[in-house]
């Protein structure tokens, strides 16, 4: 009989094992999205495809969707057929994490000759061919290479045919191949540590530990749900959409042992790549609930299972194959705001106002494929493909301001400007906070930021815009005001579309004004010292201080 004490120790160790797995990926990855920005996740699963533990490092969109993914791998390659040193891979948006740019690798772990579990990880790569990152495709087939679930390493030996095809289909063959190696190396690291752990604790399998983890997690999650006032809470939120505005609607029901979100009333599918596969919808819905209701309980199958979704067919949150889905995060990132709109009616002291939410990541491209061949009197940039990760402000919190220019709900980091400029022929002339953009309130929304980007020597380049909250500013709560809406424009003045492929011509610059978070509570009740500080720091203007906050600087 193993004591609860001993299981607690083993559980901690398992979380350390998957953290090692994630750290190995960050150390070895090629794509800036992984190594600089942390757009990844890593976890360990039992032979039924249930997730036991997940690395603390990682981003929410991958978590739950990767969790569903392992079951699909096991259907295609049953555990009994797997051998030590095998690695399996896919980027199928419906079997993985929602778009072709995310690779998921699953690897079996063997102990004393027996398969005992599976390690899985997901990472966002820079290029997977096709149109490139952006909303323009009309079906998934235009969005890039489509990798079904296949074996990329067999008993430690690389599947050269697979790698030949992989390299041929991308603009960045070295990086993409290197990233696949990194994903396999990271699972190998996890497997090694698991074997050591099982030896030390004299375990022959993971079943008993899994049972303990799942029981304890389910109990704790249900206890957290039981502490909420039961009922059904409704909210909605708007996205700019691509060809038409998108309306998201949710009815969140707190039951005795589960929380169910019904998306009835949500807009239908788009013709472009902003559609969201169901697994990704479930991922960000669960994150939005969990961060409010049970933030301290580690992620695993049992702690996430009580958070359920009903997603009607034909709605934009349940995109079927082969709808285009490349930028599903644009709408997916709004789901925690939507969920919190519901939960605010149940536990107002635990939720935030709406934030910028959707990352403002401009995919930039230049060179021959944008400008054609250089001629004597018209130089063009060298070929490049790059994306930088940038954030607006988060929503105001009940007792503190929102965070300025900080990613939420996504867990990614930005890249240093100096590193970006060393990699691509662009000059970022401005990247700083956007004064006046934080929604006013008793607590203020976080400020957005402004970026100004030019081609080197002011040469032409293109941006495949994937921005949101241009027509739908983040809303405040409890009398707090909206944050500033986003705005996309040329430095010379004309506005650009928030979504789609657009040229920034010679001599001009791309300007991104990112949204600020919504405020919370009446601005007139804001601590005067904080208003004075914001005014001193130029975060609000004298007019806003006087007219909105009722603050007399004199």
């Amino acid at each position: 009989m193993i004591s609860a004490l001993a299981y607690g120790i083993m559980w901690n160790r398992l979380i350390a094992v998957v953290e090692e797995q994630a750290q190995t990926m960050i150390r070895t990855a090629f794509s800036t999205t992984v190594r600089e920005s942390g757009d990844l996740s890593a976890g360990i699963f039992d032979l039924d495809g249930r997730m036991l533990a997940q690395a603390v490092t990682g981003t929410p969109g991958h978590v739950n969707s990767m969790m569903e993914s392992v079951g699909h791998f096991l259907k295609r390659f049953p555990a009994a057929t797997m051998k030590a040193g095998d690695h399996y891979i896919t980027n199928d948006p419906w079997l993985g994490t929602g778009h072709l740019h995310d690779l998921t690798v699953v690897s079996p772990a063997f102990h004393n000759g027996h398969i005992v579990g599976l390690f899985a990880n997901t990472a966002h790569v820079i290029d997977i061919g096709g149109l490139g990152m952006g909303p323009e495709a009309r079906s998934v087939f235009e969005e890039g290479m489509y990798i079904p679930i296949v074996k990329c390493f067999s008993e430690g030996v690389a599947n050269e045919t697979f790698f030949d095809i992989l390299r041929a289909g991308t603009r960045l063959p070295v990086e993409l191949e290197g990233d696949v190696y990194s994903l396999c190396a990271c699972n190998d690291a996890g497997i090694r540590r698991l074997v050591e752990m099982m030896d030390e604790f004299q375990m022959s399998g993971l079943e008993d530990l899994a049972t303990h983890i799942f029981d304890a997690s389910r109990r704790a999650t249900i206890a957290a749900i039981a502490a909420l006032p039961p009922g059904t809470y409704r909210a909605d939120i708007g996205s700019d959409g691509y060809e038409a505005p998108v309306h998201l609607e949710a009815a969140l029901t707190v039951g005795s042992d589960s929380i169910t979100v019904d998306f009835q009333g949500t807009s239908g599918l788009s013709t472009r790549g902003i559609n969201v596969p169901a697994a990704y919808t479930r991922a960000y819905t669960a994150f939005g609930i969990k961060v409010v209701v049970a933030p301290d309980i580690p992620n695993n199958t049992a702690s996430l299972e009580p958070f359920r979704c009903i997603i009607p067919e034909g709605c934009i949150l349940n995109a079927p194959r082969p709808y285009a889905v490349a930028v599903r995060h644009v709408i997916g990132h709004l789901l925690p705001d939507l969920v919190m709109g519901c939960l605010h009616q149940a536990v107002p002291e635990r939720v935030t106002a709406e934030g910028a939410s959707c990352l403002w990541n401009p995919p930039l491209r230049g060179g021959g494929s944008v400008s054609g061949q250089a001629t004597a009197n018209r130089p063009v940039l060298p070929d490049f493909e790059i994306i930088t990760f940038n954030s607006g402000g988060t929503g105001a919190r009940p007792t503190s301001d929102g965070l300025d220019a900080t990613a939420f709900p996504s867990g990614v980091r930005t890249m240093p400007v100096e590193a970006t400029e060393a990699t691509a022929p662009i000059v970022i002339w401005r990247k700083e906070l956007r004064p006046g953009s934080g929604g006013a309130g008793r607590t203020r929304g976080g400020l957005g930021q402004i970026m100004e980007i030019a081609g080197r020597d002011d040469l032409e380049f293109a941006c495949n815009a994937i921005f949101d909250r241009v027509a739908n500013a983040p809303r405040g709560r409890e009398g707090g005001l909206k944050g500033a809406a986003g705005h996309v424009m040329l430095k010379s003045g004309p506005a650009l579309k928030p979504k789609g492929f657009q040229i920034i011509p010679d001599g001009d610059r791309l300007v991104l004004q990112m949204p600020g978070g919504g405020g919370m509570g009446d601005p007139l009740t804001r601590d005067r010292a904080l208003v004075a500080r914001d005014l001193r720091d130029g975060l609000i203007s004298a007019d806003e201080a006087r007219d909105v906050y009722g603050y007399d600087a004199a």
Partner: protein
Amino acid sequence: MGLDYRPMTSARLAVDIGGTFTDLALERDGRRFTAKTLTTSDAPEKGVLTGVAAILADAGLAPGDVSILVHGTTLATNAVIERKGAVTALITTAGFRDVLAMGNESRYDQYDLQIRLPEPLVPRHLRLPVPERVDANGRVLLPLDEEAVRALIPTLHEHKVTSVAVGFLHSFTNGAHERRAGAILEAAGFPVTLSSDVSPEMREWERFSTAVANAYVQPLMQGYLRRLQTGLSAMGMDAPVFLMLSGGGLTTVDTACRFPIRLVESGPAGGAIFSAAIARAAGLNRVLSFDMGGTTAKICLIDDGAPQTARTFEVARIGRFKKGSGLPLRIPVIEMVEIGAGGGSLAHVDALGRIAVGPESAGAMPGPACYGRGGKEPAVTDANLVLGRYDPARFAGGTMALDADASRAALDHAVGSKMGIDAGSAAGGVIEMVDETMANAARIHAIESGKAFADRTVIAFGGGGPVHACRVAEKIGASRIMIPPGAGVGSAIGFLRAPVGYEVVRSLYQRLGKFDVAAVNELLEDMTREAMTVVDAGRFGAPVRAVRTAFMRYVGQGHEIPVRLSDRAIEAGDASGIRASFDAEYSRFYDRPVPGSDVEVMSFAVAVATETLVHDEPAPPTIAAGPARTQAVQDPVTGEIADWPVHDRNTMPAGTTLAGPAIIAEDETSTLVGALWTASIDDHGIIILSRETAA
């Protein structure tokens, strides 16, 4: 070792100012004296002078007998943590006013909606942009607007700014604009730190943060060091003063005044140097240094007698020691992992029914429940006491009575009652969990460093290290532990073992495929000259060695690994050899090299230091043993209670051997000899613990 070139008959003195105590160690003619005095935070030199007077009296020496004083201090760190530095301004590139505030735009904890992010040391109204721009290749895109710099001077006076940092984009490739702006501000009377001087490396947030932190602590540190020199002179001590750097070398007061931020982690660095000296003396190539104090445990890997080093560090973490919750510094440091697991770390049961220990700490006030100062929550020290792992009569040299009943009550209330177990089992669970936490930290730290952790000798010190070493060693697969004497003032002793040295790091991008040999050689020579100038000031003619390192990665990767370069000038044909070294290093970290990729060098380092020599540790004298004693000890894993013999360390001469289980007690700590372990005392008074392991 450079300092050993001084005559051995002269006295060498080390002073380590910590948060609570100032530790001193003095060595002369193979004898060692140690002392502790209370730190006088408002004027730290007072505590130092008091301690110096006391230790000299103990050793029977006059101030003039001291040939060298080596000094380390947490003063700079505390100024940053407590926000007591200078009113500092940052002059920066227009368009990048908020680099310090935006950081990496992420949250270090994904699930904490109430998260706090560290506030920049310079508020926005003192982050002052001026028009200028240099590109990634060092080309000037926009000339510096010198008038705009001059126009800021009244603003600086208006806000009573006393220290200024200048941080411009890409200044590590071309620092001319920073130098010009700095000259204008210096002419106006401001002390100036340039980001291209203090940390000439890529990544604007880290570089600006380092420059600002340097400027922030500079007036304070300069003032303190000058006052200390005056005070020492006044008492008749004319010995040169050296400062311990966070990178493990020593430097002069002048250099410390220019780059005080390089002193931040000098105390823990001293501890690692202490371990490294013992490792060298014992001829151990693979060591894990384990320093467990009251609030944290610090773990450092030591290979071939040298502590592992790194180029980044976070100071003043606000999120319970979480990575990403501090201010980034890009300076040479001894690489160690510090976790919130110490004697004062508090235990509770989390929502999932698991025991959790730390990082919250009882601190010195109220302290663990057993201190009887009002602490009601159980700390690791309480669990050790309840299990019988301390000799309560010897705790803190017998100066402090411990209340085991208070410990039991606290464990019952916070752990036992919630899990349905008695106080003894609860204590066992707390100890097992804290040992597991430290072992996990050691493991992950080793992985991140690309090193194996098994088969290392553990060198344990600090108040808690010798108590927890056996179990932690078992968990990481180590079968040999060393507990050196003087473990309570390990950092100060480490100062006496440090080489005089200085490291310079600079970014210079190179593809190995088209290596610019002339540019690299010129850079390396320039860096060597810079480091040598600093070292020359304090080496007293001792021979020095320059170690050159390239930080390399596959083109497109984001994390570099260090590769040693040869000592001679690089030649055109060397690229293939450097490539081979990189592939080998990479495979050592990550199993397989990546085919087809070119390799790039992001930056170079030159570390110049006096040679490190093997140093014979002085053995402490022993006294006659008292009557035999035993103590009831409960095993944290099995729960069994047995009588363990208790030995006094200062009665055990070299050659003594005993089998576990046993406790070896001393004033500052006690060494637990586990049931599977054998203890012996070597010629230097070090306790060696070893165990048989199944092959």
